[in-house]
């Protein structure tokens, strides 16, 4: 488990070593959120507000403990971020599958080699360069959720030992 010192050190390091540096790079990356929306946190999207509350209450269980509710909210946000990345990945590949299917029906590709496995493969191959960046969003959401769950569990253990 990361210590507070390690976490602080990681935060200091990320300031100096990540992110675009040139004007072009910064402009390109500033438009990421507009392309697929994954860079915008679900917490800032009103469409997710109800889902976050509902999920947070389910995670927290029957409690009025503010600390527990706050951590549950963080975990709920991270869980919804994860679901969002996964849903986007599936829709990306499904769109490509539909495009391949259309091409086969229009005769603009060789239908004789288009069995299902070949179509899936082609769809994955076409989208694989777009799947790579999604790994980063998934990794971040996964990590955030793991930390929130661990903090929640530490709180539960503390409460159990004090009871």
């Amino acid at each position, binding site marked *: 488990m990361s210590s507070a010192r390690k976490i602080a050190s990681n935060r200091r390091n990320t300031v100096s070593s990540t992110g675009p540096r040139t004007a072009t790079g910064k402009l390109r990356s500033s438009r990421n959120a507009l392309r697929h929306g994954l860079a915008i946190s679900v917490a800032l999207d009103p469409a997710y507000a109800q889902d976050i509350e509902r999920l947070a209450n389910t995670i927290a269980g029957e409690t009025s403990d503010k600390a527990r509710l706050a951590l549950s909210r963080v975990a709920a946000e991270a869980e919804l971020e994860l679901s969002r990345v996964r*849903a986007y990945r*599936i829709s990306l590949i*499904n769109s490509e599958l539909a495009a391949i299917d259309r091409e086969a029906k229009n005769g603009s590709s060789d239908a004789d080699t288009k069995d299902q496995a*070949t179509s899936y493969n082609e769809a994955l191959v076409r989208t694989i360069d777009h799947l790579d960046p999604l790994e980063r969003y998934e990794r971040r959401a996964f990590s955030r959720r793991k930390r929130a769950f661990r903090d929640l569990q530490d709180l539960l*253990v503390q409460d*159990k030992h004090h009871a």
Partner: protein
Amino acid sequence: MTEQSINANSEVQSKTVAKPDGQLKGQGKPIIPESVACFLDSPPVLVGEDPAEYKRLFEEVALAIGPRNFIEWLWVKDVCDFSWDMRRLQRLKGALVGCGRKPALEKILHRVIDSKRKDHDEQVHRLTTNWFTDPKVKEEVQKILQLMNLPEECINAQAFSDSCDKISKFDSLLGNAASRRNNALKEIERNRASLLTPSDEKALVVEAAASDTSEVPPKKSKSSPAALLLDLH
């Protein structure tokens, strides 16, 4: 409720094991709480993949892990999702080279057939298109390759070489999915270990000491997430 259905219910209950949070673990199928069942309404399957197969995998994973609270159910979903991804990626990685054989053959034929021939492009197209289905064309291609001292394996070799980049990306995606699935299993173990009270730990020590007297070494519990990891592999 009839007497028969009441008796049937009792019979089912006597076969099941009550879990601390009230979830009953039935024989063969787990009882999935409503808050979790909604995840199965939109499974992460591609067009053409079977949602029922995904649900079966989810139930298998849930039965093996025996989640004790909602957070553990989320980890169960993770294990299931990543296992599903891994199965898909492994299947497709195997087919990747096969997919690349046609363009590979085209590339080779472009090089070996005399480019000064007027019908060079037509020949390449005809041979590439029909090589998969026409045994006579297959024989023709084999003779052309033999003239250049090339074995038929060169087609697979070219396909593999062209796909190297993609194969390594598939490997990277596979590695990520495996690593996250393992993390999910470790988190469940960690969570369960951290919730043990000092009296629970004492009871475990006593149990371990008692089992040391038996001749047969104790089997690793089937519900241990780590054991599940081995089974799923």
